[in-house]
């Protein structure tokens, strides 16, 4: 909010190149984001929830529950990254508040007075939020993998039983880890888009959480296998999280990257809707 008190960024930027202008805009958005008291807490929550939930989930699965450790068919990478499903709640709140917070306090009018090019304002904001979330996501994913490495052998997932320790040198594991970080970034973009369209934190958070969680929940009640698979392919969370799979890929309704692309399509659609409404509506 401090940034918006700088009265004339366009005037100051007249003599400079466009790059400098963009740099100032990014800096302004970053200042706004980091000075909101809830932001550090939400970033911390995103990392902590992801790691804690991953560790809890990993600890709850044991080879002793299977007839023999070899028959567990457990995707240990996916298991270790499972906490992203919970950490994303903080990501949604962070990203939604980044835009609806301005509507709530009226800062949005100052922001737009300072930078009348609205699409640029929204895209800059989205870039800053997504970058922040990608950084938090990287920490969360690395923490989750480290927790998995520590917990898994104790639960019988040892190299002797056919589960080598998790390592980013392993191609599929790297894809799952990087993909999970991207997943969280796309969830942030989706949230910024919905937040811009809805302009209200409660409505936007509920909309995004419904889209992410309720659709897969309803899919569990659908017994027709064809419909079930269709819903899994179309729901942004289940499709996007297919990137976490490292084994039995042929049993997935979509290839890992195709699944992430479904989520990317949702994020792009939400951002497009946000930009259109943002540029055509009164603030």
């Amino acid at each position, binding site marked *: 909010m401090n940034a918006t008190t700088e009265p004339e960024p366009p005037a100051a930027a007249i003599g400079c190149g466009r790059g400098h202008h963009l740099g100032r805009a990014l800096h302004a958005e970053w200042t706004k984001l980091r000075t909101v008291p*809830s932001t550090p807490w939400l970033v911390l929550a995103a990392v902590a929830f992801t790691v804690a939930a991953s560790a809890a*989930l990993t600890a*709850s*699965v044991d080879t002793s*529950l299977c007839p023999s450790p070899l028959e567990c*068919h*457990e995707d240990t990478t*996916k*298991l270790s990254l*499972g906490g992203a*499903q*919970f950490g994303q*709640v903080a990501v949604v*709140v962070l990203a*939604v*508040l980044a835009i609806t917070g301005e509507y*709530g306090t009226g800062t949005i009018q100052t922001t737009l007075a300072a930078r009348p090019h609205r699409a640029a304002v929204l895209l800059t904001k989205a870039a800053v939020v997504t970058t922040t979330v990608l950084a938090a996501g990287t920490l969360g994913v690395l923490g989750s993998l480290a927790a998995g490495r520590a917990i898994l052998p104790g639960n019988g997932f040892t190299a002797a039983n056919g589960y080598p320790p998790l390592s980013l040198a392993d191609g599929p594991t790297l894809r799952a880890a990087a993909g999970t970080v991207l997943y969280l970034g796309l969830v942030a973009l989706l949230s910024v888009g919905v937040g811009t369209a809805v302009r*209200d*934190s*409660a*409505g936007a*958070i*509920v909309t995004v*959480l*419904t889209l992410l*969680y*309720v659709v*897969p*929940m*309803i899919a*569990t*009640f*659908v*017994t*027709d296998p064809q*419909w*079930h698979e*269709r*819903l899994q392919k179309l729901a942004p969370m289940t499709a996007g999280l297919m990137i976490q799979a490292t084994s039995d890929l042929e049993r997935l309704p979509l290839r890992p990257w195709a699944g992430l692309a479904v989520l990317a399509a949702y994020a792009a659609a939400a951002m497009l809707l946000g930009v259109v409404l943002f540029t055509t509506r009164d603030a």
Partner: protein
Amino acid sequence: MATTTADRHADRHAGWDGRDSFGRLVIAEWTKLRSVPRWAMAMLAAVVLTVLVSVLAASGNDYGGGGPGFAIGPDGTGVRDEFYFVHQPLTGDGGVTAKVLSQTGVEGESHEWAKAGVIIKESTKPGSQYAAMMITPGHGVRLQSNFTTDRAGSQATTAPRWLRLTRSGTSVTGYESADGANWTQVGTVQLPSLPRRVEVGLFVASPVAIKIERQFGSGSVGASPTSSTARFSDVVVAAAQPGRPAPWSDQAIGGSDRVPESLLGSATQAGGVFTVMGSGDIAPLAAELDVDGVRESLTGVFVGVMIIIAVAVLFITSEYRQGMIRTTFAASPRRGRVLAAKAIVVAATTFVVGLLASFASVLLALPILRANGLAPPVFQVPSLSDGSVLRAIAGTAAVLALFAVLGLAAGAILRRSPGAIIVVVVPLLIPQLIAGALPLAAARWLMLATPAAGFSIQQTTTQRYDFVSSICLPEDGCFTTGPWVGFGVLCAYTAVALAAGFWLLRRRDA
């Protein structure tokens, strides 16, 4: 805008005493709720989306008629009637006695509900009336009849055991004994339309073993047929009117497609000892399948409840954001009463909205489910006027109202919408997501310990049989505790949250 209306009311009734001021407060809050167009739109969206999602989910369901090999029981419902039967006719009153020497599982461990014993059955037709005295590996001696009645004899008893059934008119009495000399009566059952001539003899059954595998992100339910062998001695069929002793015959009853040929069963007799192998079960079908049509037709409520929570939270947090709460409290300094008025208004409104949504969902989705195979005789679909259906519909509306009050209380406690939404919505969603990854006992506990337990009120199949292993998975919305326990849990959460809201509201600055 809203406050001016409230003020007008206040002025008009300025001369009234305090007794009536609560009524005015309720009217003022109702005016606030209805005068925000977005909230009215959201409520409408809650109804439309609930019904739409319910109908779509119902269209995506396929029940395939319950699978092969079921029979129609005496009361017209679907039953399993599969066992190996060594029998001879009995005319008029009489009985059958046998000593079960041993009972063992074939190919692996025995099923806890494997059955071996004596039976009196109307005919060899699957689904016909019967009464049976049996011994089971896991549940001692039982007297069962007509698929749904089960009475326990001595517990923790395994073979060898003496069992006896006697028929007198339409009543059949079961006895058990440790030595064949001292008999204990287990009970008497009535088989109203039992013909004069019945089939009596020995039977062996062993149900399908249901194995539930749970992994994070996926769970599978596997069913594998089991089979059991029992040895009998001292088999005596006694008729009240003596006649020629009839020869024994044996056959597999209701040989279903589920049981491989090798497990269908057999019987041999050598030196007075019968060795009988059999597979299958004698049990109601619905309990085994455990599908609740009414609950399935209310799936869309999960979308509706999200919207309603958002409106309920905003109903108080928006006043904090705009600073209007100070005007509200200035007009009505007794803050607890303001919260009470808000709670009444939001609960009543969401109850009506929820009633509309759940009634329309059941009305539209149930026929679709019926067309997709959720129909008698395999599945029992209650009619709309049934008490349990009305309970499910009104209960769903009440659950929505409770979640609205929970949202309002969270809003009063936290004063900000994002936090209030998260603390209500996350405990509602997370158990549903992770229950499938947890061991069954932990998953059941989690579903019952969170506010989402309130949805147990949607259950209409209270008919659960302990002697049938049913597939009751908590993540599918199946609660073993019946409809009311979970509802009580949600009520308790709401009451505690509301009390905390009252306390904080009175203690804190606005």
